[in-house]
């Protein structure tokens, strides 16, 4: 039993963190605000080159063959860095392609040539034959496929098959949003949920990103509390500030521990894996949303400006909180589970 990162995992996450802080600075989100894609192709390919898209993919398709715990630790860094771009969709898409017997497709995702956007079904349905209905698509620019999670399984559908996408104003400057209404589009790949619970995997990686956000806002708020001087003292001496930072730290720690527990539970096929993953999503969403809100408050007027990063954490956290599963469904789903193992 070991829930702490190994030396190898610490090296892996340090390398990922270094890549994001050097190549994908948060200020870039503001700079690219009016660009069609939230991340430039060169940086996307550099990330693929580093192996970020194939961590858990088998070596036959160019992946590293690592575990979901390794991948979750890297997605925590993606969340911490607020890195834009279709990382989540492409990594999940590669997993789907491998399990659906399309290693060629998976290989082109792992090396960055084929990007996969996430699509949320607003109404309609998705199945082995394909999908029909109304969709919201995240970061569609440059994508070849969209990934759609349904009740019975997950599908990859060609982005071109969705017809005209209508760009929408999204809440997060780092996430492009569009909607599509599709009569019928066939699935390039279909993975039944009883073969692989891809939604749980998606929830683990989203939870890991939320953990990264919760830790980032904890650190940003604490730094501000150390340096911002009012009434002749750093504001962090006041318990009104200090205790809020402490609460952020505890929530982030709880979210991290549970997310890693959920990742390992899913990976090892424990009977209570769904219980553990839903719990991870619930505590990590709350840690990120509460923490990002507190961070804005602790920064005062500055926290309310577009120029500051504080709102970017909140907005990404809201996007992730609403992906794959709404909170009431997560809570209902958790209560419907048998007790933890």
């Amino acid at each position: 039993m070991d829930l702490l990162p190994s030396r190898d995992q610490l090296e892996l996450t340090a390398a990922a963190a270094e890549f994001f802080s050097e190549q994908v600075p948060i200020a870039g989100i503001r700079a690219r605000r009016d660009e069609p894609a939230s991340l430039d192709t060169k940086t996307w390919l550099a990330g693929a080159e580093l192996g970020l898209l194939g961590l858990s993919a088998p070596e036959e398709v160019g992946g590293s063959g690592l575990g979901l715990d390794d991948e979750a630790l890297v997605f925590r860094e993606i969340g911490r860095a607020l890195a834009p771009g279709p990382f989540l969709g492409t990594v999940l898409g590669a997993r789907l392609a491998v399990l659906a017997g399309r290693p060629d497709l998976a290989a082109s995702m792992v090396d960055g040539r084929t990007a996969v956007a996430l699509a949320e079904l607003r109404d309609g349905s998705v199945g082995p034959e394909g999908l029909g209905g109304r969709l919201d698509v995240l970061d569609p620019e440059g994508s070849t496929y969209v990934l759609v999670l349904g009740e019975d399984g997950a599908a990859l559908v060609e982005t071109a098959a969705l017809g005209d996408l209508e760009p929408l104003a999204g809440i997060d400057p780092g996430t492009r949003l569009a909607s599509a209404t599709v009569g019928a589009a066939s699935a390039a790949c279909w993975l039944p949920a009883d073969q692989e619970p891809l939604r749980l995997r998606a929830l683990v990686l989203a939870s890991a990103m939320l953990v990264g956000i919760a830790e980032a806002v904890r650190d940003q708020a604490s730094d501000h509390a150390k340096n911002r001087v009012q009434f002749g003292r750093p504001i962090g001496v006041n318990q009104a500030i200090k205790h809020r930072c402490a609460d952020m730290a505890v929530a982030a720690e709880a979210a991290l521990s549970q997310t890693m527990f959920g990742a390992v539970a899913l990976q090892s096929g424990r009977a209570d894996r769904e219980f553990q993953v839903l719990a991870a999503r619930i505590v990590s969403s709350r840690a990120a949303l509460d923490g990002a809100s507190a961070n804005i408050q602790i920064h005062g007027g500055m926290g309310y400006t577009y120029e500051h990063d504080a709102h970017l954490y909140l907005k990404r956290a809201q996007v992730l909180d609403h992906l794959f599963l709404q909170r009431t469904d997560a809570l209902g789903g958790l209560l419907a589970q048998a007790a933890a193992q």
Partner: protein
Amino acid sequence: MDLDFSPEQVQFREEVRTWLTEHVPREQRPEEPAGMREFDLGWQRTQWEGGWAGIAWPEQYGGRGLTLVQQLIWYEEYARTGLPGIDANFVGLSHAGPTLMTRATEEQKAFHLPRILRGDVVWCQGFSEPGAGSDLAALSTRAVIDGDELVVTGQKIWTSFANIADHQELLVRTTRGDSKHHGITWVICDMNSPGIDVRPIETIEGGAEFCEVFYDEVRIPLENVVGGVDDGWRVAMSTLSFERGTAFTANQVRLADTVEKLIDTAREHPGPDGRRPAIEDDEIARRLATARAEVAALRAMTYAGVCRNLRTDTPGPEGSMLKLYYAEVAKEVGRLAMDVIGPDALRLVSRWAPGGGWTGNYFYSFSQSIGGGTSEIQRNIIGDRVLGLPR
């Protein structure tokens, strides 16, 4: 990372489960002090005779010499029996014992540690005073050296089980100087010494173990000092970090079972509308699910904490995060139960009653964010020592 227990650990769990099934006390724990003492010590003695006392304590002091993982397994299995905590044995096993192990002389260890494990003695903690609660170093109970004895005069308060204890880990002021942290001495006090007056304090839960203790020229041999005269603050801090680090593992593990029991109750007990089961009320259902998620996270944090302790040996300030999170979740669970049981919330049922009493548990939950350092003090520690915020 993995959640797998080794074959030896799995077998250990099997043995624990079998033994507990056969040996856990079936009768209700008496509520009057003498009966409570006999019950708690008797249960500890049974564990010792079965070879289960001091699982992670070194063999040389009568323990099993196993790791915190086995200790965790014991707590998990123990929680499943539905028995309340180790209670009167808590200070000896989780506080005084570990402190003696790190700071005491070999003679002190050889004398006291086996007695704790065997269930011969009850320990209590003499730290807080009327004028020194969160500001523990402000303590003023005085000890004057007279020959080879300390002569202690003053008052301690919030001393659980002082009325049935044999020994006390007592903090006294031996030197009054510029630094309030210097001049404190940690000493083992015999609770049967002349000059000690123990008076019970009734709690909001109605328990019989809470006390205040008065010392009127109580004479304690100097050889009972642990860690040196005037150096007691360092000794006390090691005790407190143990308390926050690993001593609450049992409570954390038990809280998950409490939540499951509450969910079962909510499936059967009529909810706010008096007709449908409580769990069909949306608000109650969401709070139950949130509590489930939080106790899952508490368990994951506990596991991570055990792993950290295996790597580093001494509990650090992370223990305060666990303690704070546990206390806040425990209080929410206590309060949620009052909503689940609806009008039955008017009836006082002790948490020691068979099946557990939700109303008694509710009032007891308030102690969890006060005892062992308030949640506010834990937030200060996290702010100062984990986040490095200015003081």
